[in-house]
């Protein structure tokens, strides 16, 4: 016969009490307050991304900052899946500026003005300390939607010692000089230059885009590929085909295996000293100064054809519209805008800096050679151009179409003109305005 306090009863009672306790803890104001003071960031895995959840997280005392780092493509996938489903897992997300219109157009991010409208006690965020070219991407529909994290541009990296050895006294500033230098520098041991044919972003924007930019006069609100009405203009005067021809003329002076090269392979081959020149985005030139040729690299603005125009891209940080901690996220971004976070990025090894004070500081430029490219902008009279085709919601898809046709033109499967015509035809059904 069982008494009132049998082992079976005791176990059930204990489990019930534990469940009640867990529920009470979760719902208690203290727990909610703790959860509210944690900000989760959907992050990339670059130097600044590491600093964001490292040094920046330590320095910021208003909330606990957590985040997960994702490689580039995985980051895009996760961003799209999480935000499109209205997930509140992440309070803040970082995004390549190429993709930025997607969250803005789809209502996945919250504007600063809208957050302040809900909480008037929040101070205004100013972007005055940041380079003006870096802040344009987070402006949309008359509102500010986030902050820039880094500002990037295609940088021309070259081996100063090899230039000297080859008797090249002037750093190429146009594509004729670049081609001549590539031929002069090319040997069995060291390739004259590197192209990144294996990467969609690397080849379409880093290789082809950097050639395209200087071909024609780009109107203020155009990006060289599309005009402000999202009409394709990349071959309006044959400039797209010409850019492919410029790539084909330096293809013989590239290393073996260049067909499969993406950003990582490009940096690696420069670091190993197996190539003399490369033009690619500043934030993907990683580790070349850590190799045996440290200090032997020069950095400057990419050469051009007729017009001094260069793409300026980067990454931005925005607040998830589905976040339950928007006010806290806003406060974090306010703290970031004051500058300390960007200094911590620099200290963590990031070179694509967007704090204006860093770009203007000769001592910092001396330590961060990549900034020399931005210093050369005013000297060369370079006009910044937004990265194409960032204004489209499906920018990645449009970039893919362009990449496939550009590659066909560079590899000789199509003539450059045919490649551009095919790209225009394919984009007609892909671009949604």
């Amino acid at each position, binding site marked *: 016969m069982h008494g009132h306090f049998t082992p079976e009863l005791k176990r059930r009672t204990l489990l019930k009490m534990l469940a009640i306790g867990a529920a009470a803890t979760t719902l208690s104001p203290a727990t909610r307050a703790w959860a509210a003071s944690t900000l989760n960031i959907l992050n990339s895995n670059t130097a600044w991304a590491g600093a964001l959840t490292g040094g920046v997280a330590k320095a910021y005392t208003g909330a606990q900052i957590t985040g997960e780092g994702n490689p580039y*493509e995985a980051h895009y996938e996760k961003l*799209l899946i999480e935000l499109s489903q209205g997930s509140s897992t992440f309070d803040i997300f970082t995004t390549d500026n190429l993709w930025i219109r997607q969250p803005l157009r789809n209502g996945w991010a919250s504007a600063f003005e809208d957050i302040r409208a809900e909480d008037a006690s929040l101070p205004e965020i100013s972007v005055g300390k940041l380079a003006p070219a870096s802040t344009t991407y987070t402006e949309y529909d008359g509102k500010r939607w986030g902050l820039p994290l880094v500002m990037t541009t295609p940088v021309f990296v070259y081996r100063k010692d090899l230039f000297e050895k080859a008797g090249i006294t002037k750093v190429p500033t146009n594509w004729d000089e670049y081609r001549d230098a590539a031929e002069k520098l090319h040997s069995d041991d060291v390739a004259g230059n590197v192209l990144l*044919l*294996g990467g969609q972003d690397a080849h379409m924007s880093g290789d082809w885009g950097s050639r395209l930019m200087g071909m024609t006069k780009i109107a203020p609100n155009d990006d060289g590929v599309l005009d402000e009405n999202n009409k394709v203009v990349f071959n309006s005067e044959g400039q797209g085909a010409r850019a492919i021809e410029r790539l084909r003329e330096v293809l013989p002076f590239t290393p*073996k*295996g*260049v067909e499969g090269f*993406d950003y990582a392979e490009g940096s690696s081959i420069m670091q190993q000293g*197996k190539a003399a020149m490369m033009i690619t985005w500043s934030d993907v030139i990683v580790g070349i100064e850590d190799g045996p040729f440290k200090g032997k690299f020069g950095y400057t603005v990419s050469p051009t054809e007729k017009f001094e125009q260069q793409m300026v891209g980067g990454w931005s940080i925005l607040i998830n519209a589905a976040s339950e901690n928007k006010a806290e996220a806003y406060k974090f971004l306010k703290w970031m805008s004051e500058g300390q976070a960007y200094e911590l990025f620099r200290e963590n090894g990031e070179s694509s800096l967007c704090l204006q004070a860093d770009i203007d500081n000769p001592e910092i430029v001396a330590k961060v050679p990549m900034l020399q490219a931005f210093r050369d902008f005013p000297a060369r009279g370079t006009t910044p151009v937004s990265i194409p085709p960032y204004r489209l919601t499906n920018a990645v898809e449009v970039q893919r179409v362009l990449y496939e046709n550009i590659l066909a033109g560079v590899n000789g499967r199509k003539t450059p003109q045919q490649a551009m015509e095919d790209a225009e035809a394919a984009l007609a059904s892909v671009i949604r305005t």
Partner: protein
Amino acid sequence: MAKSGTINAPALQLGATKAVRAGEKSVPTLLLAPTMIIMTIVGLYPLLHSLYISLTNYNPTFGTSYSFIGFANYARAFGDGQFWYSVGLTLAFTAISVALSLTLAVLLALLFNQYRFGFVVLRTFLLIPMLITPIAVGITWRTMMMPDLGVLNYLLSLIGVSHLSWASSPSSALASVILVDVWQWTPFMFIIIFAGLRSLPKSPFEAAAIDGAGHLATFMNVTLPMLKPVIVIATLLRVVDAFRTYDTVYIITRGGPDFATDLLSVYLQRVNFRIFDLGYGSALSWIALVIVLVVVLVFVNLTGFLKLVADKENR
């Protein structure tokens, strides 16, 4: 009262038997129910949902709203040159990879069917490639195949062979990924064929020896016919597996260079999870499924697989 209260024993016994039989009949269903429920939730439902999605223009790039567009995605697929190029490439990859794996597996099985010192240990080492996760295989081979820094070209240079491009050139990339695939999955076919070889009866071989048949004649007329069912099974499994190869190829070449290794799985990944055109991607996936089913059906018919199974059951 006693009479009305009397229990009709035979009727009760019959009823009890019926109840037991009814219970016995429902027991298998009840025991299988959890598995069937899980299979329906994680297998059948997603399959049917993807079929539905394939009839829409769902693309989360543009938000979560979408429309029903009927068979427009399927019509688009038939004009998609890149898709059919990937299908052709995948068929070629599968055919070459499986043929090479099968040949090597049979030769290895014959070799290890002999009792020699150390063969047991060697046989174990032979299985290692198929135990390694495909991503690790891809990363390792990609590094080994680097034209300037990879160990393969270094070893070749020691014997005077000039550097090969391996996976870095469109002309050799497909052969390179086939090499990796054969390296990794030959042990899988080997283990199946070897087990089959070991289970063959000895008497036909003894009879062949008595009749004076040589090794080749014995292999062609005795071993191969008896081993056919096992070879067919191993090949069928390998064909289905090779058709959906993704990890190693993506890690090594990402479908390049210049689409030289843009297999169907890589193309589907790009459409579904890079461009996120899930409606179109789902339609392509269903077409790919039909293609695989057709390949399997053709294979089953050509090899007489069903007849082999029937013959075995009748023995």
